């Protein structure tokens, strides 16, 4: 029974890609440009005489205000700056450190590889954010410390992937050929392996950013994120007290919605791209 392949049409990125991408562009753009946009001051109090805050969403305050009559819209934007910044910094750090460790381990093998692999295993043994919280608690709660603490948690998954990718590529002929020609390890690393390992790691980047934003949100919700300034998690925490939540849900739901849309967009783009690069033939029957 013949298996005809479905006609492979030229694949173009459809709305499934551009819709979430659009949101990402908007949110990142707004976050970057916040200082120059005509937004209200997130720390300013906009109390209306006679009415007790929080005020529901209105033309004046698109997302309403919080219990201290601060404008939610500008607070969410200001929170975006930190949440996104932490997300990207964390990913950058964990990928650079984890990726390097993994690739070198995969290439050099021997005791170094065993050591690094065990290190990864140990890092992976700490559940959830436990180790991260510990570090933050012991040092301080600056953006840098938080990013580093989160990045430490990400080193192991990234490193393992880099190592596995390196291992599978290092066996291939072109690396052996380079070696025979006398190339030193560092050269092999950069010229031959790096381009090939980067591709599977690239898929992990999106997931990493989403995870980092999520993790920072969790920390902030616990009250363990930065002390001054806002992040999405902190805003959500602020709106989650029993009374506030029950009577004025928008205080929490505003940042929840924005955070959810951002994470969902990242995840959706990730799914979409994975499907996009995975063209399979349609077989007839089974």
């Amino acid at each position, binding site marked *: *029974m*013949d298996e*005809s392949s*479905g*006609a492979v049409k030229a694949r173009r990125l459809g709305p499934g890609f551009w819709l979430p991408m659009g949101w990402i562009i908007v949110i990142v753009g707004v976050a970057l440009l916040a200082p120059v946009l005509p937004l209200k001051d997130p720390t300013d109090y906009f109390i209306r005489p006679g009415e007790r805050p929080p005020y529901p969403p209105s033309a004046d305050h698109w997302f309403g205000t919080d219990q201290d009559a601060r404008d939610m819209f500008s607070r969410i934007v200001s929170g975006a700056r930190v949440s996104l910044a932490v997300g990207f910094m964390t990913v950058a750090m964990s990928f650079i450190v984890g990726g390097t460790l993994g690739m070198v381990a995969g290439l050099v093998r021997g005791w170094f590889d065993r050591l690094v692999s065990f290190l990864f295993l140990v890092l992976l043994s700490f559940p959830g954010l436990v180790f991260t919280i510990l570090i933050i608690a012991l040092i301080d709660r600056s953006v840098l410390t938080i990013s580093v603490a989160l990045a430490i948690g990400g080193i192991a998954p990234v490193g393992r992937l880099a190592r596995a990718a390196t291992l599978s590529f290092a066996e291939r002929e072109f690396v052996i050929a380079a070696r025979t020609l006398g190339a030193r390890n560092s050269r092999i690393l950069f010229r031959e392996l790096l381009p090939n390992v980067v591709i599977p790691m690239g898929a992990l980047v999106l997931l990493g950013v989403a995870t980092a934003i999520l993790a920072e949100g969790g920390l902030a919700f616990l009250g363990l994120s930065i002390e001054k300034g806002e992040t999405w998690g902190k805003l959500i925490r602020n709106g989650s007290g029993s009374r506030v939540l029950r009577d004025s849900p928008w205080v929490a739901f505003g940042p929840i919605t924005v955070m959810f849309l951002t994470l969902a967009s990242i995840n959706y783009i990730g799914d979409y791209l994975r499907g996009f690069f995975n063209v399979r033939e349609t077989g*007839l*029957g*089974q």
Partner: protein
Amino acid sequence: MTGRQAPLLSVRDLKVVFPTPIGMVHAVDGVSFDLEAGQSMGIVGESGSGKTVTAKTLMNLLPSYALVDGSVNFDGRDLRALAAERKTEKHLWGVEISMVFQDPMTSLNPVKKVGEQIAESVRYHLGQTRTAARRQAGDLLEQVGIPEPGRRLDEYPHQLSGGLRQRVVIAAALACEPRLLIADEPTTSLDVTVQKHILDLLDDLRAVRGMAMILVTHDLGVVKGRTDEVMVMYAGRTMEEAPTEAVFSQQGHPYTEALIETIPKINSASHTRLVPIPGQPPVTTSPPTGCPFADRCRYATDLCVAQGPPLTALGNGHHVACHMPVGTPAAETALVANAARGHTATGLEIHQSGVPIGAVTDGLGEQS
């Protein structure tokens, strides 16, 4: 064919169409045949001929989007109707009609013990207890010629060799004493030395159980001397249907003739070139009005292009779908005319000797 009792299996004008992105594919385009109880039939064809789809139709294994037409009657029951109803007649397939697949490596569940996979059918269909089913599984393993059956019951498929695995598959298929066994390329994935053993095994089992069998294969050599009848399929249609010896001694259809020619013969002179059939089987999204084999047939005339030949009886149970079967005067005339012209009515180039040009110059090399 003129049996006093009705045939066990009766297929009339079976058509199976698959909707696909490139169009409607007519995998099976009007196939009819009968099979008596205890009889064996070989269905022979290239890939794409529709033989596997026919087999799957008999076994109710087609995907849900397949469109089926025609009638399939097993022991007086309408199989198509039964397939449509989900609930009743749960115990037909797997019990009365059973199937053996091509690759035993993938047909067996890798994480289940061999004995369990054999016993499964009897427990599910016949309600036997675990111990009784296990005992029966052991018996079956013995019947299919597996040494130390007791030990094998608890092994996993990956612990057995290819030949043993296929025997296990056969044992599982026979568990509920089917009256018809369909074997789809049962030996194609196996070593050549093992192939003969498996085929012999199937023959023995058939004889002992009085079971009917359909042997689906691309290899004419597999059916020679083993089946009672052979049906040759091409492009979803029956080209020839005859008792096995007739197919080998006196082919009716040019396609069958060409197939026989492709089989290397052990007593040919050395360096005899192999004779493949030029061209490819058609992709059947638009069934031709004429004969589907015309493009590759050395006898092709304008009549062949214009009109699809019906399946006509030549006597002695021999049916051929051809306007001018091999050996008839009409065929000889057509061939001579084509050879003289240098090509057939479809443009296939013919050598003076009557052999199609594409067949010779492929350079398939020496027979060593």
